[in-house]
Structures are given as C-alpha cells and as structure tokens.
C-alpha cells in the first residue's frame, strides 16, 4: 500500500514537481508575536466561505427558484431530503458566521494597521470581499420565499431607491420590476449562485495571491522592536505548523456550526403572501440592522434635505473611506495610528450599539 502511494507520488512529482512546492511551503514562515492569533480570522473566513460553497451546491440539487416552487422546495429539503435540514441550517448559520468573521477580520487588519504599504490592494480586495459577503447575505435571504424574507427584501430594496437620480434604476435593477415578484427571486438567485460567486472567486484568488506575495504583516510596534533587536524576531513554519493550527480552528468552527444547526435549526417560516400586510416589527438580518436602525431614527429633514437620503449618503461615504483607507492614512506615526484606531473604535461602537438597539426596539 505504502509503495503504491509512493509510486503515485513520484508519478505526480515527475510531472508537477511537487517536491518544489513542498519545499516552498516549508520555507514559508508566519511571524509569531502576541497578536498572531488574529491571523487565524482570515483563514476562518475562507473556511466558512468554503462551507457555503459546498452546502450551497448541495442545496442547489433540490432548490427550485420561482415564486410557486421556492418555498415548497426548501420545505422539501427540510423535511424529506436526507440530512437536508442539516445542510440548510449549516448554510444559514455559516452565512451569518461568515459575515461576522469577515467584519472581525477587517477590524483586526485595521487595528493592526496591516493595510499599510505595500498591502494597500490586499486591503481594497478584502473590503470588496466584505461588500460581496453582504451581497450574498442580501440575495440569499429572499431565496426561501417566506414572509420575512419577502418583506425584508421589499424594505431593503426601497432604501437605495431613495438615492437621487440613480435610486430608481437601482430599485428596478434589484427587483426586476416595480414590485418584489418571481422575477426578483430569479434575479436574486442568479446573483447568489452565479454572478457573486464568480466575482468572489476572482477576488479571493487575488486576495490570497497578494497575501502569499507580501507575506503576513507585522504590526508597526513589533516590527520596530524586531528591527531594533533582530534576535527577538520569532517565526513558525507555514506548513505544517501554522496550517495545523488553522486546521484546529476550522475543526472548532465546524463543531460550532454543527451544534448551532442541531440545537437551533434554521426555521422556514410562512410562505410569502404578496397580498398580505407586512408583519409588525419586521427587521433585516443583524448585519444590516445598524444601518436600518439609523435610517429609522434619522429625522425626516436635516437642514432642508431628506434625512434618509443623507443617511444613505453617509453610509456610502463610510464605505468609500473604508475602501480607500490605505490611501487616506499614509502616515506611519503613532499619532496617526491612534487617530485611525480611535475612529474605527468609534464606528465599531456605533455599529454594535445600533445593532443592539435595533434588536431590542419594537
């Protein structure tokens, strides 16, 4: 058996030079310092994305997009398909954990100032990936075609419609018409399983490629310390030491997903009724809640301008600042670090506070 494996390996090695790849992997190192555990968040996000791809493909075997079939097909998956409930629940829970992990990864990179030269484009591709993950969440939410998803999508698509000039075309593009109908469902389905995954795959490859190219960033303080006293520099091998540690984290994530799916299976709700009134107190998914709550609280008019439009523009600006942060924050001084960290803390605090407020508000 061992000789057979050895001959297969040598057969592959002759053609693909696996030994070179192995040598490269063993040569690659990861810095080891008191913030090293933050490096695992990116890998964890990648793992959850992988879970989404696998469970999503499995769901595709039974899911039927269409206003007359979508709900029934998810119901079939939940009740008739062997382990269908598990796959769907893991897909739903993993989607939420993925968004959470993507935000956590973004803030960890921001606080460790890993976006600084030469990793500006790694950051930009990461922020784009976060936006894509939110897009995945929004487009996937409608697919079960239940009452909550129907009205949440209705409210969600109305928000960009407030933007002057381009708002209405955006609404028509997202809905595939004036109202949320079967056309919206097929549109969201197309976005969710084809367009967004294609863009995400490209960006992930780009993101990972740049990480490999530049290596792991070391926080400025530690980098300065290591520069002054090189013998304090510590590293571990990427393979197998870092990969095995990452694997441990993935196992824990898998266990957590399984537990959430078994203990709190994702419910299906009631089939969307296009003629029914919206349920009271309808809210979007938690990761949109801070924006939703802000737009709810914002005054109708601010200095004579439409409050909701101003709110949307403000969030757009925050998104643009996040995207262009490496180009806006070029300083390497400790005061610049504190200023960016302070603003990020402020925004993070605002997000958490508004999410909690939106969660408990009637």
């Amino acid at each position, binding site marked *: 058996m061992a000789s057979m494996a050895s001959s297969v390996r040598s057969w592959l090695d002759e053609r693909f030079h696996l030994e070179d790849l192995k040598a490269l992997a063993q040569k690659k190192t990861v810095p080891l310092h008191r913030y090293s555990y933050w490096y695992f968040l990116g890998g964890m996000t990648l793992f959850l994305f992988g879970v989404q791809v696998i469970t999503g493909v499995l769901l595709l075997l039974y899911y039927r997009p269409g206003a007359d079939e979508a709900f029934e097909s998810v119901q079939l998956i939940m009740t008739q398909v062997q382990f269908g409930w598990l796959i769907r629940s893991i897909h739903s829970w993993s989607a939420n954990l993925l968004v959470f992990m993507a935000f956590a990864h973004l803030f960890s990179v921001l606080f460790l100032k890993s976006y600084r030269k030469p990793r500006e484009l790694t950051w930009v591709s990461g922020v784009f990936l976060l936006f894509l993950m939110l897009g995945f969440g929004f487009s996937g939410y409608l697919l079960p075609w239940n009452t909550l998803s129907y009205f949440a999508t209705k409210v969600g698509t109305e928000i960009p419609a407030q933007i002057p000039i381009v708002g209405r075309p955006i609404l028509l593009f997202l809905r595939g018409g004036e109202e949320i109908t079967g056309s919206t469902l097929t549109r969201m389905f197309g976005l969710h399983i084809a367009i967004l995954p294609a863009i995400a795959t490209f960006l992930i490859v780009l993101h990972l490629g740049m990480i490999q190219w530049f290596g792991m960033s070391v926080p400025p303080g530690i980098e300065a310390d290591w520069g002054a006293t090189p013998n304090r520099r510590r590293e571990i091998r990427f393979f197998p030491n870092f990969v095995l*540690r990452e694997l*441990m984290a993935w196992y824990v994530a898998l266990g957590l997903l*399984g*537990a959430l799916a078994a203990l709190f299976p994702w419910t299906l709700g*009631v089939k969307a009724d296009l003629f029914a009134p919206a349920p009271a107190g309808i809210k979007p998914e938690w990761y949109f809640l801070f924006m939703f709550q802000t737009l709810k609280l914002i005054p109708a008019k601010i200095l004579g301008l439409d409050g909701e439009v101003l709110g949307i523009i403000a969030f757009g600006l925050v998104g643009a600042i996040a995207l262009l942060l490496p180009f806006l924050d070029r300083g390497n001084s400790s005061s610049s670090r504190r200023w960016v960290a302070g603003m990020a803390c402020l925004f993070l605090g605002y997000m958490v506070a508004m999410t909690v407020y939106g969660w408990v508000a009637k």
Partner: protein
Amino acid sequence: MTGSLTPRAQRILRTGIVVKVLVASFLSCGQFAAAQAKNSCLDYHSSLPEPLGVSADVFSQNIHAQKGLTCAACHGGDASSDDPEKAMSRAAGWKGKIERSQIPELCASCHADAELMKKYNPRLRVDQFQQYKTSVHGQRWAEGESKVAVCTDCHGVHELRAPSDPRSKVHPANIATTCSHCHAGAEYMKPYGIKTDQFANYQESVHHEAMVVRGDLSAPTCTTCHGNHGATPPGVANVTNVCSNCHVFQAQLFDASPHRAVFAAGGFPGCVTCHSNHGIKHPTDEMIGMGEKAFCVQCHTEGDEGAKKAVAMHDRLASLAAAIAASDDLLDHAERQGMEVSQAKLQQAQARDALLKARVAVHSFRDVDLKRDTDAGLAIARQTRAAGEQAMAEWKFRRVGLGISVLAIAVAVIGLGLYIRNIEAS
C-alpha cells in the same frame, strides 16, 4: 307660533332669517348645500333650544335632507318662505308637531308609494307599512296603543340616517341597543307582561360577540330572527325556520331526525330547547350526553336507549377533540424544538374540519352519521401524531448525532494539538 310675537320681534326675526340665509348661501358647501332646497324652518329652528331646536349639522346628516327634502315634507307648510306667517300657514298644509299616532301613516305616505320611492332609491322596499300592520307593534298601534314603537322610535327623527350609516340607530351593530331602549325597560314593559332580559342575555351570546367583537355585520341581531317592520316573536313551530336561515345543515339534519316529531308533540321549540334564544352561548361537546351540562338529561334517563346513544356521541366528539389537542401539543412542542412540522400542522386543519362536521352531524341524533366524521378526523389526527412523533424522534437523533460529532471533533482537535506540540518539540 309667530302670531304671539310683537311686530318688532317679528321684524327682528325676519331680518335674522334673511341674514342667516345670505350667510349660509356664501358659506355653505358640500353635499348638503348642493342637495338642499331652501329650508327657512331650519334657519329658524337651528337657533332654538330643545325640544324645538334642530341644528343644521344634525339635519345635514338626515337621509331625507341629503335627498333634498325639507322640513315641509313631513311637517307641511312652505319652507321656501322667509315669512314665518306663510311658512307656518295652515293653508300651506303646515301640521306643526306630528302626533305619534300619525307617524306610521305619515311615513307610509311616501314609503309605500312605489312610484315616488323609485325616484330616490329604486331598490328600497315599499311594504314596510303593510308589514308594520302585521307586527305586534303595528297591531297595538292600530288599537290605539300609544307606547308601542312607531317608525321614528327605531329610525330616529331629525337625525334619521341611512341604515348603512354606522351611526344609524338601525345599523346592524346598533339594532339591539335600539330595541333595548324599550324592551330592556322593566317599568316600560310592565303592562305587556313580557321579559326584559333579552338584551342582557344577547350581550352574553355568541351572536353578539360575532357582531360587536368580531365586527361581523351578518351576525344575527334582534331583527334577524324577529323581523323588523313586521316584528313578531317566532312561534314554537317556526323557530327552526328562523335559525335555519343561517344554520342550514343543522336545521336539515334536525328536520330529518327523530327529535323533530317528538319536540313538536311536546311543544318544545326546536333549536331553542337546547341552545336557548337570546343568550346563545358557544356550543360545547358537554351539551350532549348524560353529564351535568348535557341537555339530553332533561328528557332521557340514565340507561335508556337515547341516553346510551347520547353518551356514545359525546364520547366520539370528546375522543376526536382530545386526539386533535394531543397532536397539537406534540406538533407545537416539535416546532418549538426547531423541527419543521408545517405540513402536519396543515393536516390538523382537516382534522378540525372533521370535528366541526361531526358537531354539525350531532343534529341528526344518529350515531352512524357522527361516527363517519369522527372516524375521518381520528384517522387524520393519528397521521399528524405520527408526524409529530417522527419529528421528535428525529430531534433526538440529531442530539445524539451532535454529541458524537462534537466528540469526534474534540478528539481531532486534541490530536492535532498534541501533534503540533510533538513536531515543535522535536
């Protein structure tokens, strides 16, 4: 009336009326103003206190005023004249206050005239007066009784609104209250020797709940059973006919049942014998059988053939209700655990339908009819219970699976940790 005023007072009154008419012609708007012919009486009476006062606001909501009629349509006189002498001239047909005894015929002078009524509402019946004369009210009115209800007692006088207006005294939601003004007055009804608890009982009834709480205007009120203009208490023989207007199947089954002839022979009014009349409560399964709340015990004795059947019928209903409740509990529990049981819950609706049909079938008083429906319901309830049990079994399987998975993952994580420590130590 104006004859007693001094010439100066009459001049002031005339001037006041002219000013009011001028102001009204400038300021008036809306339907009332558009539909109204000149109505000098209103200009004057709107400035008077009760009982002679009629405000323009109240009169504007009067269905007759909205159709363009003036005070003169009922009271006679010339409403187009600003001169009180002419307006209230006997020569112009002025009648002054209309006596109660004159009201039915006065109303009928228009409402019994098919040609005239067509101009205003071609759908409106014109036999109200004929019906009224057949009613207990109308018969006593014909005998000269002055206390009995006449048209205005129910419909109102100057504030008379269309029955479809929710503020109308004869709007379905208000009819019981309107009737109760007389029929709930113990002192008022004393001379007639009839009960006065009908309204109190009705307020406790399932029909009142449907009408007032659920806002179902098709629910029965006084006039649904007693009639309106031809109001009369339904006799023993025709109570079933009255109830069957809505409860069609129950009435058909009862008519074909052995109880029909027995009740008639015993002088028991069909439906009312078990369900009462004004205070009809939600029927319960306890009403049949030989229990404390059962009505069967009034005629049947323990052990007789009828009592045995009644007990059997009660037991069938109770067993189906219990089976449905047990399935409901199980499915709710499974749903709370996150299990998907919506299809079984949908099936429960069919079991409930079968129970409803069985409760209707009770009125045939034949066990075989009831058994057919309860058996169908029990079969569905068994299926839903099985679905609930399967869901709970699946829930337990998931728990076990989770435990095994967590254990396997923990072993893998510990193994990896040990392996990392090992390779880093070496």
